[in-house]
């Protein structure tokens, strides 16, 4: 074994690779895992972790506080109901998506890494699918996890955990269903916007605007418009839709006097809209990556 000057090659001889080649499904899986790690900045520098990890902590805070209260002062009262939780962290959800989505897809456009992906063992649409799944998975950390923490916390606070389970197990499918729909809905909107531009600042602002502006505009129009038309206005606001379908999942009534209560739309309308938007954004994403030049 010899090495000449620095920068030249070690004379080790080349080894052929005779092992297995796992093909497209493995490639998609590897991209998914890599992207999920990227969402939280795992394997990246500290500065890439600060944003997403900080937001996760903020999103978990109400649930953890509740868990703490339950541990210290066990009482038979729930501080936050599961259907209210997303209202607490709405803005965190939007900001998380606005921070993470541009990193997830914009970076590969900015650095022109897409041509390396598309010249490997996957198809363009596979790339879009893996990224979409990765962001949904990332979002679950701030939707599903706090709900689970709260569920456990409230169980511990109850006098008898067995009774609590018997009483509340019906919440579990609601928790899971609402968390997945919420994650898909927000991830879809965020990714479709982020995939349009390599510029991170633009897409971050655009994603935030997509969540916040319709909420303000929708609220205003709702006030102004007459009842027959106005009640549908809330459907343009993603954040109202989130509240709407969460209530539907938990079969709960909206707060009296809230916009959702006054609109008095069937809860399933919000759920159907959220599911349609999630599917539509996925379709748009697949189309975008089918055409993007690389």
């Amino acid at each position: 074994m010899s090495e000449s000057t620095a920068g030249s090659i070690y004379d080790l001889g080349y080894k052929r690779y005779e092992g297995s080649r796992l093909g497209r499904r493995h490639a998609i899986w590897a991209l998914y895992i890599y992207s999920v790690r990227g969402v939280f900045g795992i394997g990246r520098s500290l500065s890439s972790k600060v944003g997403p990890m900080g937001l996760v902590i903020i999103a978990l805070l109400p649930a953890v506080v509740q868990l703490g209260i339950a541990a210290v002062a066990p009482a038979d009262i729930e501080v936050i109901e599961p259907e209210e939780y997303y209202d607490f962290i709405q803005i965190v959800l939007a900001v998380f998506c606005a921070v993470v989505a541009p990193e997830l897809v914009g970076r590969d456009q900015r650095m022109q890494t897409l041509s390396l992906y598309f010249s490997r063992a996957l198809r363009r649409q596979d790339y879009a699918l893996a990224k979409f799944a990765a962001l949904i998975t990332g979002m679950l950390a701030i939707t599903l996890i706090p709900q689970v923490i709260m569920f456990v916390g409230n169980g511990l606070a109850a006098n008898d955990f067995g009774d609590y389970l018997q009483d509340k197990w019906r919440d579990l499918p609601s928790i899971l269903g609402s968390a997945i729909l919420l994650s898909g809905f927000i991830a879809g909107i965020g990714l479709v916007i982020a995939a349009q531009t390599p510029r991170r600042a633009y897409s971050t602002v655009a994603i935030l605007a997509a969540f916040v502006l319709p909420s303000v505009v929708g609220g205003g129009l709702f006030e102004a418009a007459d009842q027959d038309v106005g009640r549908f206005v809330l459907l343009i606001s993603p954040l109202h839709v989130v509240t709407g379908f969460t209530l539907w999942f938990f079969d709960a009534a909206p707060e009296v006097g809230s916009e959702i209560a006054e609109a008095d739309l069937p809860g399933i309308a919000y759920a159907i809209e959220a599911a349609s938007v999630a599917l539509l954004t996925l379709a748009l994403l697949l189309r975008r990556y089918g055409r993007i030049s690389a």
Partner: protein
Amino acid sequence: MSLIRTISLTKRFARVTALDGLDLELEPGIIGLVGANGAGKSTLIKILLGLLQPTSGSGEVMGFDVFRQGPELRQFVGYMPEHDCLPTEVSATEFVAHMAQISGLPRAAARERTAETLRHVGLFEERYREMRGYSTGMKQRVKLAQALVHDPKLMLLDEPTNGLDPEGRDEMLHLIRRIGTEFGITIVLSSHLLSEIERVCDHLVEIEDGRLVRSASMAALTAPTSVLAIEVDGDAGQLADRLREQGVAVNRSGRFLLVQKEDDALLDIIRDSVVDLELGLVRLEQSRRRLEELFRSLPVEEEQEGSRV
């Protein structure tokens, strides 16, 4: 089965036709793809990789249809683009291992081969650092490594020496030559510099305006000509005069006298003339054709790109 086969491959963009009914059939080896900028080299490479859809025509690589069997085929293909393509926020090790997995290698094998490949391209301690601070030379090495890590059967290298200084260029070409010969991987190397192709490749494909101009082995292209080059130690002019006296047409080119060789008798005439004039015969050889003579339209000098580091 040929390695690469295209049948009337055509690619039209809004304003230009990049490939115009290209028929190509290539056997394994180290293949140089030459042509001026905009001749269609990159377009051809991108179509073979499935990065671009052709307007019409078909292409096959190693028996795989490049459009229908892309993912299967591309497990065995490595691509080094002309442009920057590396993320800045991960280390070379992490990125190359990731790319190996995207080419279908299991995780453990990907890690192992990444370490070896980065060593082969000459990247050492710095491979654990974020790529943000890498020099152009280091980036080019990582780009080469990600194209090699999964032990492909074919590597498509698009202007791999772009942006390198002369030393870096030498090392890159040496590395590519070694991958082609010792590692036994077929290479398609595009360059607008003939000198690079001449150094590295054993087959040459020239395209111009999206059409095939020639495809031939380097040996055939640089075959001996019927011109004899004579170099003497002494006054070449004297020899030239003596030869002309005996009815031989002589051209002078620098230190050399060039004569058209029609039969072996000429060799005797030259020998006798040299002896008579008491000159020393330094060289008497059939001159080879030089690539530059075939490609007058292409830049031969290395200046333009190399200095832009």
